[in-house]
């Protein structure tokens, strides 16, 4: 019974879609965002539940600079980073003195405030409300060496623009990962880890824990902002409702899947996360299309939703059975913050 089913599946297509997803724009964006979150939580122990807010600030920084302020696109990237840094400062000043769970609540609230403000009519002149800012990435793509519409390698194909942003993005991700690796081996990084392990002890040694945490928040926030920028440039649109809180939780899942506090875990975690999601989705889609899953149980609409159910289940299972993820060590990272 099962053998004909397995034989009937279009495995070539499944593999192609899974691999495409694992190296695609989303995986790249989430890998970068998770590198930022890893600095916050993995190395400093900051419980940031509003990471999507940094992405929104980065994305809107670029969009507003180009569309609303009509600025040079390279200056726009700088403005995106500045936006994210400003958010880090605004968040950090009141909350970094508070206990971890307060930081969690304030950061998730801040990310929602940003989204609601961005879609409001009050700031319509700046953000264009719910429809968002569109069609601003042309300047960036004019740099692209990939002028063809479509590039094919065997079963894989990319649009030229997509190929460009994916390659640039992954290069940046690797550079950032190397930077984090070097930073965390430096004295500065060791202070961050000391704060994560025992803030009072770090303070007793004369380290200004507050200022170090602020630096960590700003660095990770800026990287989150860059992830947001790449996302909006890839789509050439920035819309408020792409920055919903559940994105933050997805980035957390990516980070925990890879292993908190490890240099390469955001990258591997993101590739596995998006690869698995695509694999599940396309397998289920084929099952549904072939009628092996009765439509009363699952229709094509529900396949997309089912992925999120799996994310929830996966997160619970990870935390219960393997909190250190793929690379982490249980001893070093007991996943507790202060």
């Amino acid at each position, binding site marked *: 019974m099962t053998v004909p089913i397995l034989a009937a599946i279009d495995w070539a297509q499944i593999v192609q879609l899974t691999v495409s997803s694992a190296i*695609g724009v989303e995986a790249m964006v989430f890998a970068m965002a998770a590198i930022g979150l890893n600095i916050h939580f993995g190395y400093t122990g900051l419980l940031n539940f509003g990471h999507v807010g940094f992405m929104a600030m980065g994305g809107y920084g670029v969009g507003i600079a180009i569309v609303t302020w009509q600025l040079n696109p390279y200056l726009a990237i700088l403005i995106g980073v500045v936006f994210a840094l400003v958010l880090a400062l605004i968040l950090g000043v009141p909350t970094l003195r508070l206990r*971890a769970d307060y930081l969690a609540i304030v950061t998730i609230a801040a990310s929602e405030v940003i989204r609601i403000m961005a879609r409001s009519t*009050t700031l319509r002149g700046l953000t264009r409300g719910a429809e968002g800012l569109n069609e601003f990435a042309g300047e960036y793509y004019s740099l692209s060496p990939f002028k063809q519409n479509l590039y094919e390698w065997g079963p894989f194909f990319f649009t030229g623009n997509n190929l460009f942003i994916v390659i640039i993005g992954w290069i940046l991700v690797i550079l950032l990962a190397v930077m984090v690796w070097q930073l965390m081996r430096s004295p500065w990084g060791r202070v961050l880890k000391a704060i994560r392990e025992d803030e009072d002890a770090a303070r007793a040694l004369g380290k200004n824990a507050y200022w170090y945490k602020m630096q960590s928040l700003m660095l990770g926030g800026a990287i989150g902002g860059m992830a947001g920028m790449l996302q909006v440039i890839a789509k050439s649109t920035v819309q408020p409702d792409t920055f919903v809180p559940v994105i933050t939780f997805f980035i957390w899942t990516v980070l925990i899947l890879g292993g908190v506090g490890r240099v390469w875990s955001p990258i591997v975690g993101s590739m596995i996360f998006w690869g698995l999601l695509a694999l599940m989705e396309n397998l289920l889609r084929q099952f549904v299309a072939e009628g092996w899953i009765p439509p009363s149980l699952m229709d094509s*609409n*529900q396949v997309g939703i089912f992925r999120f159910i799996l994310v*929830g289940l996966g997160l619970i299972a990870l935390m219960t059975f393997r909190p250190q993820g793929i690379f982490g060590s249980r001893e070093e990272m007991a996943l507790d913050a202060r």
Partner: protein
Amino acid sequence: MLVAAFVMSVPFPALGQESDQGVRVRLQYQDAESGENVPAVGVVFSVTQEDGTPVGDGATDDNGEFFLAVESAGRFNLTIDPTTLPAGVTLRDPERATLTVTVDAGRAASALFGLQSGEGGAGADESDTLRRVLQLTTEGIKLGLFLAMGAIGLSLIFGTTGLVNFAHAEMITWGMFIVFLVEGFAEGIGLLPDQKLLTIALGALAALVVGGATGWLMNRFVFAPLRRKGTPLISQMVVTIGFGILARYVILYFFGGSSRFFKSVSGQSAISIGVVDITPSDLIAVILSIVVLVIVGLLLQRTRIGRAMRAVSDNRDLAESSGIDVQRVISQVWSAGGALAALGGLFLAQADQVLWEGGFRVLLLIFAGVTLGGLGTAYGALVGCLLIGLGVQLSTLFIPIELKNVGALLVMAVVLLIRPQGILGRKERIG
């Protein structure tokens, strides 16, 4: 097609997209003679985009319903033609003949036009501001009470275990859908069209029982084992997030993304008490929530279980060493929290809508209320939520309605700056 799978589509928000993206109105008025709610038939509406581009128009059907599908999400102006209203019926507020609604992708946006029959007439101009303040105060207290139903459980769970339960939002949503299921069942056995009060009472009872059982089960099979294993609190918090995502999308999976309304209470028109308008079901929900909260207060203050809860919340080690069975108290707190959250879900949904992310939408307000009042204190949660409810509603006097939640969240941030332990929280080191 395959290219589209790779070129990033907007990944998340367009979930549960159904064909009901559009603008919806249900128009009813209270018949002056019979006192019953009657649908307003044949009332003409026109819909334009915000910049004035016409989208379409139409009239209400025999049920008083008007629906116009729109192709893209966004903000729309909906204008009623008052001359097409049934004879003797007028707009309660003639200035609000045009309403602006925001249509989210795949969802229907509802607009509410207040109608009145008979001579009635809007109040004089000079008392309008005062009337609005009173009305908004009522709305604020209502919202605050409903939020408090969820917040007390959240706060007590935090107090007794130190856990911030992000899945509390879904316990609220669960309450909404328990009642929705009860209504479907009542309809099936022929109870519903006539026995509305009985149906909703059964629904409330089911919400209490099933919600409480859900809380108990979550503690028994998930969080008690995690505590026994010595899982750090942050990991437990991530588990609650996983649970929240799981439950939210399971509900979306089975019930879809469209908003629903309780058949047993929908379509009521507001009654006037003094100068304040409130629907009968809102009024009952407000009274019930006050009763429930008073009972909870008495239980906490007067009974052994309640005292034990407060003792564990106050100082767990001390409570344990004085012979209190801490695990049992925690189990009771989870059950009570689940029951209250589910009832809160019913109250919130009857005033608004039944939606798969209904609980998640108010979670941040509840967090704000709990933080404002002081994490871990039951009374603080109540006070904090009332302040948040009032803040949300009254802030619309000064800021646009779409930003009302922002105000509440900013208030929370400011309070944390000045008084990190919250209004009723005890001062201790929290940094």
